[in-house]
């Protein structure tokens, strides 16, 4: 579904050039859930922005669904760290924003919007404004918005990192459920090892300066996975320790 071939990204700034990414080769299968993990500044967001078509790589090329990426695509949706809701719009009209921008048939999508809001437990909140919701609820709205146009690919840049650990756990579990119902390919950036393991089919571990892929770790734990007491504690602890070592050690 997504193919990156020798992708490199160099930013020119006043104090010289920054090699944000170098020689990134990565293939993400259809319907796969990949998490990206790495220290601050190792180029995770840059990688996501390249796939989203918000940035053009200075080296190599990026393909989505077999086509070269040159601009944002309608079948790829992006979700950011912060909910990024328009404060003057109601919950429903925030969810409908992508449809409105694309000029689609609103009537048809409105039902879907209601369904999605129901799915994330926000039925009854359609006409509230964002500031009337808690942070977790806002991030749920943002999730619905990124699902409204049935994207083939979802790119998520630390979507839950501003939430408290408990809300975060809830939303991670919800995301797994949704992922199983709607088949999409997901690339998910996170700082949290726990979250990376909980969600991923594969965890891509990155190292900074220049941003490179250090290792790709397969997570072979059966789904649905949950936090807390569970049968696979040992397997989780093993992967967790492995990731920890990879991240903490010098490159």
């Amino acid at each position: 579904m997504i193919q990156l071939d020798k992708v490199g990204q160099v930013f020119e700034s006043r104090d010289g050039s920054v090699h944000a990414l170098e020689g990134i080769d990565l293939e993400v299968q259809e319907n796969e859930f990949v998490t990206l993990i790495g220290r601050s500044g190792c180029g995770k967001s840059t990688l996501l922005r390249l796939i989203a078509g918000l940035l053009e790589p200075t080296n190599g090329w990026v393909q989505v669904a077999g086509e070269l990426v040159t601009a944002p695509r309608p079948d790829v949706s992006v979700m950011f760290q912060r909910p990024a809701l328009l404060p003057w719009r109601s919950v429903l009209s925030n969810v409908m924003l992508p449809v409105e921008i694309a000029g689609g048939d609103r009537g048809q999508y409105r039902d879907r919007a209601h369904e999605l809001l129901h799915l994330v437990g926000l039925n009854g909140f359609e006409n509230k404004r964002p500031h009337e919701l808690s942070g977790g609820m806002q991030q749920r709205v943002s999730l619905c918005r990124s699902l409204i146009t049935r994207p083939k690919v979802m790119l998520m840049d630390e979507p839950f990192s501003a939430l408290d650990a408990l809300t975060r756990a809830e939303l991670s579990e919800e995301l797994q459920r949704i992922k199983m119902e709607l088949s999409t390919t997901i690339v998910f950036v996170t700082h949290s090892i726990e979250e990376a393991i909980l969600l991923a089919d594969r965890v891509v571990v990155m190292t900074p300066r220049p941003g490179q892929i250090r290792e790709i770790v397969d997570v072979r734990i059966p789904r649905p996975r949950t936090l807390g007491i569970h049968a696979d504690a040992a397997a989780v602890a093993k992967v967790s320790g492995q990731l920890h070592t990879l991240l903490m050690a010098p490159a």
Partner: protein
Amino acid sequence: MSAAPEPTRPRRSGSTLANWLLPLLGFIVVLGLWWAATIVFAIDDFLLPSPGDVYVAFREQPGYLLDQSLVTLIETVEGFLLAIVAGVPLALLIVRSVVLERVLYPLMLAVNAIPKIAVAPLLVIWMGFGQAPKVVLVFLVCFFPVVISTASGMKSTPVELVELLRSLNATRSQEYFKLRFQYALPQIFVGLKTAISLAVIGSVIAEFVGATAGLGYVIVTSGASADTALAFAAMALLGVISIVLFYGLVLLEKKLLPWAEESR
């Protein structure tokens, strides 16, 4: 991030009674001091008329003064609206083009620095005695704050929201009208609130020269015939117009932007 109220944010203290009573009290105290001063120091009323004198001056020709207030009000509002109509699109251009911004900002700063009172006679010579030069002067006075606040509001749109729209493949005009302009509205209102006080002053200044009506005209003519009380009555009406327009904008903002107060 939670929906619960932040524990330490200072709350608006209590009753709406205090909201009205305290400012009123302030005004009454000031009026009282003023009146007392005119009596205690036996100040001649052409130097400083007492509030009573001012009230009498108003009562003598309330209809006339209200008519003049209306003239000033209309000029003020027209020039103000014109500044919005011209200033907002210009701000848009400035936000879109760094070159335009670099070229126009210092020019606007320089134009803004020219005392409008010195421009007023020139406007009359160029445009005659009608409403036109007054409206233009109000426009000149309001233009700068409107442009600055609109531009800086649009520029302060969070990158995450701009990037969201980009990721949705939004066109440039969608980016500006569905996002930046809306986002800038609270800050635009800050500019409008600054501009409206200036607007009133602008129309009065314009009426000092070549006017046949309006409160500025009343102030000039009453000054020339040493009727200080009448001049004060006109100034009091100007104060009222200013405050009414200002709080009108505040109300409009509350109506239009209920999200702005709570969400920032």
